[in-house]
């Protein structure tokens, strides 16, 4: 049959219709429609977390000196959540934002994957992976070389604390090696310890029984913003705020800025910054004058009261103090009376989070106020919390080189004639190195980030450039690690054993042990093991100083009889021993800590603001926390500074507009946030931003507040007492 045009069309149309009908009567279109609908809902690049057995493990958070108990929730081997540990004596189930964001620190791209050596220039972030043996060998070569040249004292070591076995292993290493330059980073603990030495004659720090007090007078302490052990303090705050219809405690905040603590307080007294000591002594004046002090305690348990009283009565009348502080005499008198009559009053010291040493006189004046109401070592009062670095280890064997090195004075001058009572003066280091580039030939840094946390960032950077050899033991690519020559990464705190000292500011002694709750994620090594491996390779007496096989042996031995309890429950809460020393009143009129800068060209005062949602110490603020910042603190990558609208009016500044912030130490463009919560004439700058280390998730946001601040030496202690700096703001 001939296939004509017509037949062709008939065939095609027929077959097509048939095909259509066939398809329609088959499941194909209906099934495909359904599948395509599902397909549009499936985004295969969206991760699907794996399921599995859920388990929980307890350990201790090591991200700040608050040391909360934490419980990690695990799904098979993965940590999916960090929660507060129920029943832990410090934080009983609560957690802070940083602690909860510890997950991001564990799994983040800022982890150092293994031992690395710098390639290219410092700070360029070019690294080459090397083996552990090679990394340790490099450190040993360098350190042996310095030793053989008779310069062991040019090696310095910085750690964040000197409490606990790991910092003590570093300290011991330094002694065995022959350098007196073991240094702890700065904090309010420096001043607390010094004050306790002077007032109580003890190696101790200050613990506050916040929970039992019924009148809290805080001298600028950020009680709910990270001061002390943050969760514990917030929980104490909740106790003060509860009570049947009546608040359980009165809270008074002395601070020039409406911080969260000030906002939550019953009374907020913005006094002229830097005059807190005068206020404390003025309050003492009223208490003595009205005979409201605890005479039994003062007569029996203190010394030096008569002379101190004379000073307070002659120089700190409410009228005088009113002129200095800007607070009316009536308010001072009323506050003093309310404090003394409260029953269980407590005066608290330590500015902000307590990350800077501060003024020794201020600390002593606040402690004296507590002594005046008989509030020392008793319920609801100030406690002497003993701080010991003696772990009962055998004496360090020293060869000739070591004893000669150890015989040299410390570079920072601590413990020398000028600063006899101070143990460490870390803020001095940049100056020392910049003045004498030969001073430090090698620097070891463990669990600290001095490059970021030390005042005067620009000078710190200069000093780092001058140190020929820097070894970091950091878990993360923090700023110090980024500028090191070698990184020998420590295990993450969720991956390792370590004893955890008592929380800062806590009046009870809680000894904890953190334990690995997750498998080691990278090729890291416990810093305790690393430092011992270095010592053993160095040989001789340095090696002999470390008779232990590994860090676990060190830990077990140091924990002694407590080990079984620690291994079982993770902590031992000890009954604090009450030291019986007398409280000493120190009768010296205070000298105000002068601000650096020129009051004419720099008419404003820049003060740091420490925020609960912003980690301001050695740990970079993880992305979770950065997200929680207020829109008036950070916008994009631009940092806000807080000024009163009145100040803005005086200097032509406008809300949310750029301005140039300048001090003697640094200069940067910032945004202006107008706030009625800050005293006119002040500029508040959030502390903890402006990271350059870690990676793009953390770096480049805002400016480091430390880069504007210089070091102002406390006239008595020699510690850094910087609380602000003169500044200029010009609109741009």
């Amino acid at each position: 049959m001939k296939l004509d045009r017509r037949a062709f069309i008939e065939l095609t149309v027929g077959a097509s219709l048939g095909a259509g009908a066939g398809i329609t009567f088959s499941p194909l279109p209906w099934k495909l429609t359904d599948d395509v609908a599902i397909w549009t809902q499936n985004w295969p690049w969206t991760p699907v977390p794996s399921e599995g057995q859920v388990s929980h493990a307890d350990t201790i958070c090591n991200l700040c000196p608050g040391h909360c108990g934490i419980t990690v929730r695990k799904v098979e081997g993965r940590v999916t959540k960090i929660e507060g540990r129920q029943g832990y004596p410090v934080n009983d189930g609560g957690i802070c934002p940083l602690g909860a964001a510890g997950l991001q620190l564990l799994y983040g791209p800022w982890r150092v994957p293994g031992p690395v050596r710098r390639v290219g220039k410092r700070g360029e972030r070019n690294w080459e992976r090397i083996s552990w043996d090679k990394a340790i060998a490099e450190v040993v070569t360098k350190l042996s070389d310095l030793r053989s040249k008779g310069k062991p004292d040019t090696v310095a070591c910085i750690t964040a604390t000197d409490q606990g076995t790991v910092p003590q292993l570093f300290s011991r290493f330094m002694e065995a090696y022959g350098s007196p330059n073991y240094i702890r980073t700065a904090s309010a603990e420096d001043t607390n310890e010094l004050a306790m030495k002077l007032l109580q004659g003890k190696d101790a720090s200050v613990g506050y029984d916040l929970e039992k007090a019924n009148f809290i007078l805080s001298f600028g302490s950020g009680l709910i913003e990270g001061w002390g052990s943050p969760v514990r303090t917030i929980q104490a705050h909740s106790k003060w705020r509860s009570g049947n219809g009546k608040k359980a405690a009165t809270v008074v905040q002395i601070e020039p800025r409406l911080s969260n603590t000030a906002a939550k307080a019953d009374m907020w007294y913005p006094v002229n910054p830097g005059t807190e000591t005068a206020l404390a002594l003025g309050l003492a004046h009223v208490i003595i004058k009205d005979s409201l002090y605890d005479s039994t305690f003062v007569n029996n348990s203190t010394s030096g009261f008569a002379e101190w009283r004379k000073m307070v009565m002659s120089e700190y009348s409410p009228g005088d103090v009113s002129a200095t502080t800007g607070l009316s005499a009536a308010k001072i008198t009323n506050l003093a009376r309310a404090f003394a009559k409260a029953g269980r009053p407590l005066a608290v010291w330590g500015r902000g989070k307590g990350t800077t040493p501060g003024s020794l006189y201020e600390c002593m004046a606040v402690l004296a106020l507590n002594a005046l109401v008989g509030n020392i070592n008793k319920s609801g009062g100030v406690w002497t919390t003993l701080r010991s670095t003696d772990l009962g280890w055998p004496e360090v064997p020293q060869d000739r080189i070591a004893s000669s090195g150890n015989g040299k004075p410390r570079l920072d001058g601590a413990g020398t004639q000028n600063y006899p009572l101070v143990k460490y003066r870390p803020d001095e280091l940049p100056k020392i190195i910049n003045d004498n580039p030969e001073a430090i030939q090698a620097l070891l840094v463990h669990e600290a980030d001095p490059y970021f946390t030390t005042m005067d960032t620009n000078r710190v950077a200069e000093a780092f450039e001058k140190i020929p050899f820097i070894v970091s033991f950091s878990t993360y690519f923090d700023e110090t690690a980024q500028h090191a020559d070698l990184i020998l990464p420590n295990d993450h705190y969720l991956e390792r054993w370590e004893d955890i000292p008592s929380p800062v500011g806590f009046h009870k002694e809680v000894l904890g042990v953190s334990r690995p709750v997750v498998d080691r994620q990278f090729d890291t090594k416990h810093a305790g093991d690393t430092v011992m491996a270095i010592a053993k390779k160095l040989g001789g007496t340095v090696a002999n100083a470390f008779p232990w096989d590994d860090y676990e042996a060190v830990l077990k031995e140091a924990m002694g009889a407590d080990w079984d309890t620690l291994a079982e429950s993770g902590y031992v809460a000890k009954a604090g021993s009450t030291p019986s020393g007398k409280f000493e009143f120190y009768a010296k009129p205070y000298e105000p800590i002068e601000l650096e800068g020129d009051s004419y060209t720099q008419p404003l005062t820049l003060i740091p603001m420490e925020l609960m949602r912003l980690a301001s110490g050695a740990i970079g603020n993880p992305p979770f926390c950065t997200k929680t910042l207020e829109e008036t603190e950070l916008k994009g990558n631009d940092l806000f500074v807080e000024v009163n609208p009145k100040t803005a009016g005086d200097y032509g500044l406008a809300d949310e507009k750029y301005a140039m912030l300048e001090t003697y130490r640094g200069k940067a463009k910032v945004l202006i946030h107008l706030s009625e919560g800050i005293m006119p004439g002040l500029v508040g700058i959030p502390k903890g931003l402006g990271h350059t280390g870690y990676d793009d998730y953390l770096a480049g946001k805002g400016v480091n507040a430390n880069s504007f601040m210089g070091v102002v030496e406390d006239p008595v202690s020699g510690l850094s007492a910087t609380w602000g700096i003169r500044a200029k703001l010009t609109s741009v």
Partner: protein
Amino acid sequence: MKDAHHKGEGHQEGHGTVYKYGMVINLDKCTGCGACMVACMAENNIPFRKEDTNDRLTQNFWMRVYKISNGGSFPDNDICYLPRPCMHCEGHGHHNRTPCVTVCPAVATDYNHETGIVSQIYTRCFGCRYCMAACPYHVRVFNWWDPKWPEGMEEYLNPDVSPRMRGVVEKCSFCFHRLQRARNKAYSEDRREVHEDEYQTACTQACPAGAITFGDLTNPEHKVYELKKTPNAFRLLEVLGTNPKVYYTSSRAWVRKAADVYVGKEGSGVTHT
């Protein structure tokens, strides 16, 4: 304060026990620390980006702590923090229902009368964002970007909560998966009811101040039952009749007053930053 339970109760649907989960947040205790926000982000696999800071228009938050101010001049200025999860509005009667549920053209969100929880089904949502416009509390957020975690960080994701894809709306679920988990446990012990302490949201658990109390608003044995009736208790934008299940308490009058003021600087002198 209006009484929370007068209508729409007692739906004895199916054979399940009827709960009405809600929260009472003590603003006197809340310190604005942000632990609730972080705990929520960790619990609910909330993504973040390199550029992320805190831009309210684009950032993903289920729980957000707002800072409000009385607008006073120095030194009479005062601030208060206000944590804001989803209010899980119940609405009143048939004409004034949950604002987001009524507008959703995809039935991607519904009000569960057995739990009082407003759901959000991501695979069902097509991202029209009507619900975001309808919600008076700004609790809903849109996924403008693909959720991407830096290499290695997917390890911490919680398998109980599905990570959301780009282009859908999400919001606080009162950690509904925790109720599912608690129910599993209860069922395996041959009981239907879930105890108060077995189902707590991540923010409640994390709050170091103990400012958040969570439970069944209709159960006299749960702490929230009494707390919501305290004289200082209030709800946000009560005037709209959304009948939210999140209550706040504050001893400060200006804070209570601020709860019903919507437009920032206009009028009341209360500013919302």
